[in-house]
């Protein structure tokens, strides 16, 4: 198993998946923002409509920027009405994202703290070829920077590859790739994880039981993610996949490389989403133009269920908020396609790995779900997990990083509401997280330790 990770060619698939995860991750952020903004715009619109009865034209402009090419006009009408409501429900959407991110982080931190396997250094991925065991600090820094460059270039290559595939309509290939990678994740990584957890708690389990459990888990997971399934189950599976992926990263990335990679990924995310020629942006726009749903298994949606190949928002998962929206949304069937494209754009950002994508569904419901790329989940969890694993201040540092990431997520959502465009979700949160990690570890920890030893309280 371990050697598998290191050098074999059989890693190709996982590597692909991983890299796709990476690239996917960057994109998810924008999608999230799109979704959020769309919902916000919608809410604001409805609100304004109710209040002033103003015309839809201003909203159209707002919507246009938000949704991108094809749907702007139609959406703007809807959006105007919903804009104001959206902002009011913006808090609800934020919470809908807080909960899964928190759950993922809790799972990762709990595993790191209890299972020794994930903190032992047992080799490196082929994506990070340079070792960090060098004697001098400068050499180590250089190696980590080189590792980062290798990793980022792999991600860029994979993303561009995916965008090209999407552009030339090689859907089968993409679907096959996604299915293979999620298959590998669900079965192989779960097997390793379960094995390690059982080892830690010294629980014996025979092979037939193990096979039964893993088979059931994996099969249900495949169905839920790629096809239909209860929304909560799908969300739970996506969270588990993200946690597993994050654990793999935490284990196999060398220390300094991990931090540099986190920083570089957020910069890449920023560029890939905002630059006009960025691959993610192109992916989103292409998906919008074609009015197609974004791939499932790359996005986490808080209020929709995806069917394979069709981003069809499921109103069933919407919940109570739907009622409010329904009255406004009746008869707006023509807005369906725009909403699909919106959600797609969000999701295409994170091709490959599971990017939870926040999709705004403007279909019949006013309720728009929020989509976040799975890559974002993974990198947030990697940051918090690394803080839990390597910080000597233990829980204080972990807690500080957790709060920092949540606040970054809030700010990102706020910006999404303001700009109404796809925005990268990684940079702000990761920056806050990194700043807080390093400052808490080096500055706050001695202070708190001294205070605690004298039992002083501030």
């Amino acid at each position, binding site marked *: 198993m371990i050697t598998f990770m290191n050098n074999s060619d059989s890693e190709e698939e996982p590597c692909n998946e991983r890299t796709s995860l990476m690239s996917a991750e960057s994109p998810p952020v924008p999608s999230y923002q799109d979704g959020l903004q769309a919902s916000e715009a919608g809410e604001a619109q409805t609100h304004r409509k109710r209040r002033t009865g103003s015309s839809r034209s201003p909203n159209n402009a707002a919507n246009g920027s938000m949704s991108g090419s094809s749907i702007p006009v139609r959406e703007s009408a809807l959006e105007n009405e919903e804009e104001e409501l959206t902002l009011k429900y913006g808090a609800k959407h934020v919470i809908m994202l807080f909960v899964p991110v928190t759950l993922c982080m809790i799972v990762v931190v709990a595993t790191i703290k209890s299972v020794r396997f994930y903190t032992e250094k047992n080799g490196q991925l082929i994506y990070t070829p340079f070792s960090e065991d060098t004697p001098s600090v400068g050499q180590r820094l250089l190696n980590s920077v080189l590792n980062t460059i290798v990793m980022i270039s792999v991600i860029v290559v994979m993303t561009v590859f995916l965008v090209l595939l999407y552009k030339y309509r090689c859907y089968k290939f993409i679907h096959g790739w996604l299915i293979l990678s999620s298959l590998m994740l669900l079965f192989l990584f779960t097997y390793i994880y379960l094995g390690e957890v059982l080892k830690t708690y010294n629980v014996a389990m025979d092979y037939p039981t193990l096979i039964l459990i893993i088979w059931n888990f994996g099969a249900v997971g495949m169905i839920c993610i790629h096809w239909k399934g209860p929304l909560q189950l799908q969300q739970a599976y996506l969270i588990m996949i993200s946690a597993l992926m994050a654990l793999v990263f935490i284990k196999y990335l060398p220390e300094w490389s991990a931090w540099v990679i986190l920083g570089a990924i957020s910069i890449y995310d920023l560029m890939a989403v905002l630059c006009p020629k960025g691959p993610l942006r192109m992916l989103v726009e292409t998906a919008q133009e074609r009015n197609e749903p974004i791939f499932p298994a790359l996005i986490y949606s808080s209020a929709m269920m995806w069917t394979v190949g069709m981003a069809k928002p499921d109103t069933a998962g919407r919940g109570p908020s739907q009622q409010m929206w329904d009255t406004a949304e009746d008869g707006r069937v023509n807005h369906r396609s725009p909403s699909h494209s919106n959600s797609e754009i969000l999701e295409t950002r994170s091709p490959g790995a599971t990017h939870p994508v926040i999709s705004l569904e403007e279909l019949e419901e006013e309720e728009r779900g929020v989509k976040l790329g799975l890559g974002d989940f993974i990198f947030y969890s990697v940051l918090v997990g690394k803080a839990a694993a390597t910080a000597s201040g233990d829980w204080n540092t972990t807690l500080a990083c957790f709060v*920092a990431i*949540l606040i970054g997520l809030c700010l990102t959502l706020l910006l999404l509401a303001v700009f109404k465009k796809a925005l990268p979700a990684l940079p702000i949160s990761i920056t806050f997280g990194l700043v*807080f990690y390093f400052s808490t570890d080096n500055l*706050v920890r001695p*202070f708190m330790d001294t205070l605690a030893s004298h*039992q*002083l*309280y501030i």
Partner: protein
Amino acid sequence: PALGLFLFTIARDPLRIIILIAGAFFWLVSLLLSSLIWFIAVKASDPNDEPLQKGLLIFGVMFSVLLQEAFRFLYYKLLRKAIEGLVALSEDGCSPISIQQMAYVAGVGFGLMSGAFSMINLLADALGPGTVGIYGDSQLYFLTSAFMTMVLIFLHTFWGILFFHGCENRCWWEIVAVVVMHLAVSASSFCNPVYVGSLVPSYVLMAVAATWAYLLSGGSAQNVRRFLLCKS
């Protein structure tokens, strides 16, 4: 108890959760800045000089208290702006959350974060093997830490309410009273491990702050009596 507060009063409303996390964030930033100052001071001074280190620590504590209150004020300003935004966006012209609720949630946010930072390493160590106070320190270390943390969390909540009320009505003396109380509580913790000196005044101050906040929020003795006697 703080967790109970959170579950029953805050977890229902998403807006409150956001305000809570933002409050915790502000406290964290204030802690960061104060520890930065302390760190610089320590590095710049002689590490072997015991009284100096103790004095620096006391200075660090006081400075941190002042910074915390300053950040509470900044948070108040931010929440004021946010309320205006929410009012503009709401349907019927009034904000979905009042400033008092925000004050309460902000106080809980501050309190939770400070309590977590004070207690959590202690709790993690408590899970492991060991004897309390083996070197002649007090054997009640864990217990008193728990009580002190709890009183501090409650105090932060009440101070939040008082502070925001003072800012709203421009009662400067209320704000000054909150700052002085905070300083007093921290200073009383200097008496540790003579626990009588720190726990008792803290609890007394907490009772004072609790009644004050309760009265400010519109409660009265009749309400309490009615509540206790289960009248409708």
